[in-house]
Every structure is written in structure tokens, then in C-alpha cells.
């Protein structure tokens, strides 16, 4: 049974309309100006409005359309773990240094799939943290904290 919120096309239209709507709400604060002297708000307002219209159009067509496409199943585990593994890198980098941060990140990443192999994950964490550190901090000479702050 494909409801409104399973209907891929309806959601696509909603997505676009939301972005357009947010754009309009925000951009109306900027000076609009005129055609001769376009203010900072001109372009964003026009485009956001256009986007809102397109989004609304897609939504309406989706509602009226007999054939609906269902949106594919969402693998929440993958979404959450991949995102989390990137975020944790940002959190850990300065306090803990690159080696630790990369290790934790790759462990988190490994959890993004079902079925964890502890030995393999540990080995991968080791390999990634050493190669990435060697590549970025040393070979490329970029300033990036390698060791934890308390060392």
C-alpha cells in the first residue's frame, strides 16, 4: 500500500517545495531591488519561488497519478553509522589526535554493515590510521593533530 509518505514522487516534490519555501522565507529579508539594480534578494527570491512552484507541481501530479512508485527501503543502520563515523571524527580529532580519531571512525564505519568481524575491523583500523597519518600529516605535510592533547 503506497501512502503519501511512501510515494517517491510526492516526497520528491515535497522536498523541493520545502527547500524553496525555506529559501523564500529567508530571502525575503534581503533587499529586493529592481531589475536595473538587483539587490541581494532578487535572485534568491525568484529562484526559491520557482523551486516552490516546481515542487508543488510535482506533488500535485504525484497525487493525481495512478501509478505510484514506492520509495526503496531505508537502511537506517547504514545511514546512521556512516554519518556518525564522520561526526565522531570531527569530535575526536582535536582532543585525541588523528591516529585515535581515524581508528574510532573506521570502527564506527564497520558497524554500518551487519555482521562484524572483530579481528578484521581492528586490523583495518590499524592500517587506516597509520596510512592516513603518514599520508596527510607527513607525506603531504598538512597541519593536523596526530597525538592526543595530553601527550
Amino acid at each position, binding site marked *: 500500500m503506497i501512502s503519501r509518505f511512501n510515494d*517517491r514522487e510526492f516526497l*520528491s516534490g515535497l*522536498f*523541493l517545495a520545502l*527547500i*524553496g519555501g525555506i*529559501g523564500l522565507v*529567508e*530571502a525575503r529579508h*534581503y*533587499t529586493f531591488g*529592481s*531589475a*536595473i539594480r*538587483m*539587490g*541581494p534578494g532578487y535572485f*534568491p527570491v525568484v*529562484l*526559491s519561488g*520557482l*523551486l516552490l512552484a*516546481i515542487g508543488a*507541481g*510535482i506533488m500535485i501530479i504525484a497525487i493525481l497519478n495512478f501509478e505510484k512508485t514506492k*520509495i*526503496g*527501503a*531505508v*537502511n537506517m543502520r*547504514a*545511514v546512521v553509522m*556512516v*554519518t556518525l*563515523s*564522520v*561526526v565522531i*571524527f*570531527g*569530535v575526536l*580529532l*582535536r582532543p585525541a589526535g*588523528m591516529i585515535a580519531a*581515524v581508528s574510532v*571512525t*573506521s570502527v564506527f*564505519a*564497520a558497524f*554500518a*554493515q551487519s555482521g562484524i568481524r572483530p579481528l*578484521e575491523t581492528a586490523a*583495518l583500523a590499524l592500517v*587506516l590510521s597509520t596510512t*592516513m597519518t603518514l*599520508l596527510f600529516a607527513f607525506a*603531504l*605535510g*598538512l*597541519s*593536523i593533530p596526530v597525538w592526543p592533547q595530553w601527550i
Partner: protein
Amino acid sequence: MDLSGIFLGFSIALLPLNLFYCLVGVTLGTFIGVLPGLGPLVTISVLLPITFGLPPETAMIALAGIYYGASYGGSTTAILVNIPGESSSVVTCIDGYKMALQNRAGPALAIAALGSFFAGSVATLVIALFAPFLAQSALSFQSPEYFSLMVLGLVTATALSDGALSKSIGMVIVGILLGVVGTDVTSGTFRFTFGVAQLTDGLSFVLVAMGVFGLAEVIISLENPTTRVVMKTKIRDLMPSRQDIRMSIWPVLRGTGLGSILGILPGAGTTISSFISYAIEKRVSRDPSRFGKGAIEGVAGPESANNAAAQTSFIPTLTLGIPGSGTMALMMGALMVYGIAPGPRVMTSHPDLFWGLIASMWIGNLMLVILNLPLVGLWVKMLSVPYRLLFPAIIVLCAVGVFTLASSTFDVYLMAGFGVFGYILKKLDFPPAPLLLGFVLGPMMEENLRRSMMLSRGDIAIFLERPISLGMLILAVVLLVLAAVPAVRARRAALESE
């Protein structure tokens, strides 16, 4: 004919540093071309921060090598394992794999590589001859022409991208809006920064690319794991028979011509070139029933076409500053980070970059032919690298890479957000390339629109009064109409399922 450019180019391309990075680029390109699920767009996005330590021409040489190298690798797996490593290799699977099953994998691979090399050489020549001419004529461009050209570029890209037209247009607009984020150059107003200080300089396009293409791709691949079956096909003999060569000559020539021309058009790319080449070969053949059963023309034509297109697609990017595809938009973004604004002036202000890049393309093609044929077995072994070892590396590369852009952990969080954003785009079946194009072109479009309006005192007819601008806008409208016509769309869908 002024050949000084080519000499300059080779003198740059043959420098040891550039030779080395050319090799790195094409090898890496072949590697990711072999691996399904990892394409040039993702790889270039992820590797951009690493190249920033290099001089600009070296970085471009490496990135370009990845781009056209991938089409070589993609054909290898298409023929041997019936899995297209790249979308441009899909057509090669059809007859190439059949040939492999008939113990003719060797000749198929050889013809694919040699045809690609020929196409690449010709395309390099095309660039060398055509690009200066194009750049010359573009020197007279002013704001209205630039604006119309950008509109044409965006329209072509949306018209030729897969997926619904309305969604492509939507993506372009979203991309432009993302490009607007930051400080307005003319008035100094903060736009779409929502009070966040780190956004006042705008969104780094590398960040957006890594999130939308790199991270999102990882999530999607984890959702739909592809089981790879590596069939052991013995490559007995790489030498194609005399008849193979004879039957391939015309397909290679046709494919090269087709690809060279289609590559120049913004929006048309390697994939479309290979599809159209296959369709042409089938239609022109004396015995079309052979197609689908191991006809070598079905490999020779498309492989030449996609390689030629991969190279000539640099022309609009370098000479006009109009990226014809998502990957070209990435390249252009990379150039802009180096402070090189692509456009007609690039040839005169940075001739070493321009000609060096072109010369290195030919060298890269040579490397690929020499590399690919003997090392085929090695590439196939690469297929057995499980994805679960690869994707953490991609995630880490993205995370570290984005941090090094501005030493900012905020960027890391932002990119994670764009990863989710890109995932949503994929789930909702939005084509990603128009987003990137809109992002790169948007701010410049606005700038040119503003200037044009000031020039004309608010008269919108300025775009229609100037002949070049008018011509481009008419072309854009024609393309839009054509793309919207159902018959054309059905044809394209049929072409894709062939």
C-alpha cells in the same frame, strides 16, 4: 597552424613530476574503473583535498588521468565479468562478455584498448585544434553572452540527464541556491547563513561534492550490496585476428568521430556517446543479428566513443568555463580553488596548464594501453577486494580530507550533513550532476545577470538583441522542448535498455 602550444605542452607533460602523477592518475583511474560502485566522480571528489598540495597543472593532470583512465578499467570488467565498472561500459558488456564466453576475451580487450587509444589520440588533436579557435571567438563575449551560455550549459545538462526533467531543473535550482550561500559580493549582505559564522564565506564546493557524492554513495552501496561473481576466463591470446581488426576499423572511426563531437556538447557525455555508438553500429551493420552474440563492432565502436568523449569534454570546461557534466564541474571547481578562473583567457594566461594538460592526455592514453593489456589479470583480481574493506577507507578519506581544507571540524560536521542530503537525493531519484553544475555556475550566472541588467538599464531584451546570446537561448529552448517531448524521452529510455 601554430604548433608552439603543443611543444610547450609536451615540455610540461614530460617533466618527471607530471609524468609520475599522470601515471598515478591513470592507474588509479583504471583501478576504480574496474571496481563497480566507485566511479570517477566519487574518486575525484574524495581525492581533491590531497591534490591541493600540488602545482595546479600537476593536479589537473592527475585528476584528468583518473577520469579517462576509468573508462579503460570499466571496459575490462565489462568484458571479463559482465559487470560494467562505469556507466559508459554498460554497452560493452553486451557483446564483450559474449566474446569472453566464446574464448575471445583477449581480442575483445585488445580492440577495446587499441580503439580507445586511437580515439584518445584523435580527441587530443581535436582539442589542440579546436579549443584555441573556440577560445578566440569567445573573447568577444560579454556579460549577456556569458549568461546565455551558462543557461545553455545548464539546460543541456538537465535535458540530457536521466530522470524526470522537472527533477533535473529542481536540482539545478537547489544547486544555485547552495551556491548563493555566503556573502553577496556586491552588497555585502549575508545570504542563507542562518547566523552561522563559518558560512559567511560560502559553502566549499569540495565539501559539498564529498558529502553528496562520496558519503552518500557509500551509504547507498551499503544498502544495495552487489554480489560480485568473478568468473575465471582464461585470456589465452591477446592478439586479435586479422578479421577482427578489419571489422573494427570503421566502428572505431565512427565511434571516435561521434564521441569527439558529443563530448564537446555540454551535458552529453561518455555514457550517451557509447549508447549512440552501439545503436549506430547495429543499424549500419550488414548483419545486425550478430549484435548481442559477440559482435566485435559492439565493443570497438562504443569504447572508442566513450574515450573520445571523455577527453573532448574538457573543451567547454577549459575554454568557455562551462562544465558539461558533474565531473567537469568538479574539475572546474578545482581550478577555481587554485585561483584559475576557467574561460577564454585561460589559454593565454595559463598556457602551461592548458597545453600541459592536453599533452598529458595523450601520454596518459599511451600509458593506459601499455598498462592495461599485460596487467589485465591483476585488475580482475582487484575485483575480489571486498567492499567492506574499501568503504571505511573512503569515509576516512572524506573526513580527513575535508578537515584539511580549512582546518575546521565544523566542515566535517557539515559534510556529514551533506552526506545525508545526498542520500535523500538518491532515494528520491534526483540526478546529482545538475546540482553540482548549478552550484558551480550559479554565482557567476547571477553576477552576469546583474551586469547585463545594468548595461541595458533594466531592459531584458538585451539577451535577445545580441545575436550570439540570442542564438544560445534559442538553442536552450529547443533542447528543453525536445527533452520534454514524450517521444524523445521514450526513445532515450529505449536506448538505455538496449
